[in-house]
């Protein structure tokens, strides 16, 4: 029971790291980016290649995955995404679906359609018993890293100058522009960091979530659930939503394997009907 809760928390934390970038881009520029999972996949594959082909240590591969994906995000944002900010949601959806299709096919071409396995270093493998509860070492490692990231993000948003500019831009973009905040530059930076975090999440999650070319399609709905249930106006909303989703998904798969998926989708639709702005957001 507690093991399930523990696994659920680890899973939820992972989902948060994967999805928080999406929640910021959606909140800031009102941009529906269905291709967010493609960045996560990119991070995952960078790690796999570094680990299995070049024998880079796992702990070093993680920051590399973050930087590589962030760079990819920045390039795509400056060249392609930036042209679509003012466009209709339909255009944005079509564009990002196109990107997903391309990413899926390209990865399939380069690496084949099979599952990729990450060779974990030995000190992250295995389980230990703490007070009768079986705790996976790797999952504790994930909780640790993601916990640090959550705190760091929260501090960056609430304490730094960049964070307050970002919050101002999310709250009211036009006024923020009027006050001389360079919303475009903030958005580029945020997009890069969000993509980087997704890449890091993909790298961390390759072991737990699995990694194959259909990753962006498989997890798209999870990211969207986190964002819509959590709302886009803060970081705590998506965080709580991720934890709930993670625990519900793990518990659902364990106790009622046949109905696990229904629980999540039904929950999402119900939330959307009664609170279209998200569970934890104020209505605007």
């Amino acid at each position, binding site marked *: 029971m507690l093991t399930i809760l523990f696994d659920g928390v680890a899973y939820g934390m992972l989902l948060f790291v994967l999805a928080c970038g999406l929640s910021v881009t*959606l909140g800031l520029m009102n941009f*529906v980016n269905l291709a967010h999972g493609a960045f996560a996949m990119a991070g995952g594959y960078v790690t796999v290649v570094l680990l299995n082909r070049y024998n880079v240590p796992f702990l070093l591969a993680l920051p590399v995955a973050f930087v590589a994906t962030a760079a990819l995000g920045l390039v795509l944002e400056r060249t*392609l995404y930036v*042209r*679509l900010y003012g*466009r*209709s*949601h*339909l*255009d944005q*959806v*079509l*564009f990002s*679906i*196109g*990107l*997903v*299709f*391309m*990413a*899926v*096919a*390209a990865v*399939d*071409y380069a690496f084949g359609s099979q599952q990729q396995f990450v060779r974990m270093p030995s000190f992250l493998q295995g389980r230990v018993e703490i007070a009768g509860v079986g705790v996976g070492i790797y999952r504790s490692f994930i909780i640790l890293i993601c916990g640090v990231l959550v705190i760091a993000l929260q501090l960056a948003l609430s304490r730094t100058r960049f964070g307050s500019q970002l919050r101002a831009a999310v709250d009211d973009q036009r006024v923020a522009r009027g006050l001389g905040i360079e919303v475009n530059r903030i958005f580029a930076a945020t997009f890069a960091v969000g993509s980087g975090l997704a890449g890091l999440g993909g790298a961390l999650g390759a072991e737990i979530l699995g990694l194959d070319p259909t990753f962006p*399609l498989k997890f798209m*709905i999870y990211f*969207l659930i986190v964002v*819509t249930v959590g709302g886009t106006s803060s970081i705590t909303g998506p965080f709580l939503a991720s934890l709930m989703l993670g625990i519900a998904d793990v518990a659902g798969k364990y106790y009622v394997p*046949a*109905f696990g*998926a*229904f629980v999540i*989708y*039904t929950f*999402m*639709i119900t939330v*959307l*009907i009664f609170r*279209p702005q998200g569970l934890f957001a104020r209505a605007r």
Partner: protein
Amino acid sequence: MRDRAEALILRRARWRPAEYVFWLLAFAALVLFPDRHLILNEIAILALFAVSLDLILGYAGLVSLGHAAFFGFGAYAAGLLAKHAVAEPVIGLVAAGAGAALLGFATSFLVLRGTDLTRLMVTLGVALILGEIANQAAWLTGGADGLQGVAMDPIIGVFEFDLFGRTAYAYSLVTLFLLFVAARRLVNSPLGLSLTAIRDNPLRAAAVGVPVNPRLVAVYTVSAAYAGIAGALLAQTTQFVSLDVLDFHRSADVLLVLVIGGAGYLYGGIVGAVLFRLVQDLLAGLTPQYWHFWIGLILVVLVLMGRERMTSGVAALARAGVDRLRPGAGRATKELRP
């Protein structure tokens, strides 16, 4: 004033020569391309599916990322009906359409609320739930193996399905034509005009007395029925249903079809279906496993270029083609068109 408005609406609804030519060609394909009936059948089904999406997207402005829900529902309904009860296709078609309409009616209330994003998620969610049901209820649907053992009787007891898809194409084309004519009447009726008003500005539409929500529910239900019939056609003509009919790819592909052909004038779905299948065939011939890469690239380029420009380009091409067909009209058209 009333007379003028009426005349305007009637003129909009009048059949143009190009349309006669278009449908004559579609029916002539029965004789002209005897060895292409299988792919033509697929095109007709895809076209019907796209027309159904056009009704809600092009006319009512509702975005959907899960239109495959109704397509798949219709396919399974027709397949199961043929397997367990009645194997006559037309009855199956009507039943599948009615079932999908019920489903559309029930889920239409979910898309009334919220923004585009909420709609995208809700429609996607509904399609995913249906896909999951079809996957889990393997005792009924065959799960991942697909629904096998569907055998159809001859259509209305006379026309037997053949191996080369000749009957199948004729059947799908007649269905497409009849439903298209109905849809054409619908969008040119006051109901259809009120839908475009809602699409352009829901607030103003409500202010001039259009009952916004009931109209959206109505068109969503009709569109679901169309999609269900398209799915039923696929199930009946291929005599097989797999989980693929509810897949996300299908919802995305039909969006692409409509985007290629252009939304909001009904023919877009058909033109798009033809182009889409031709492109798909070409790409699948070049790189069999990875053709979705090129589809993705087309989507990205289309959006970056601007969808409207592409659509108006196709429309202009079509007009030019028709003008050339009309005897002696080649010179005068430039001055006639405003």
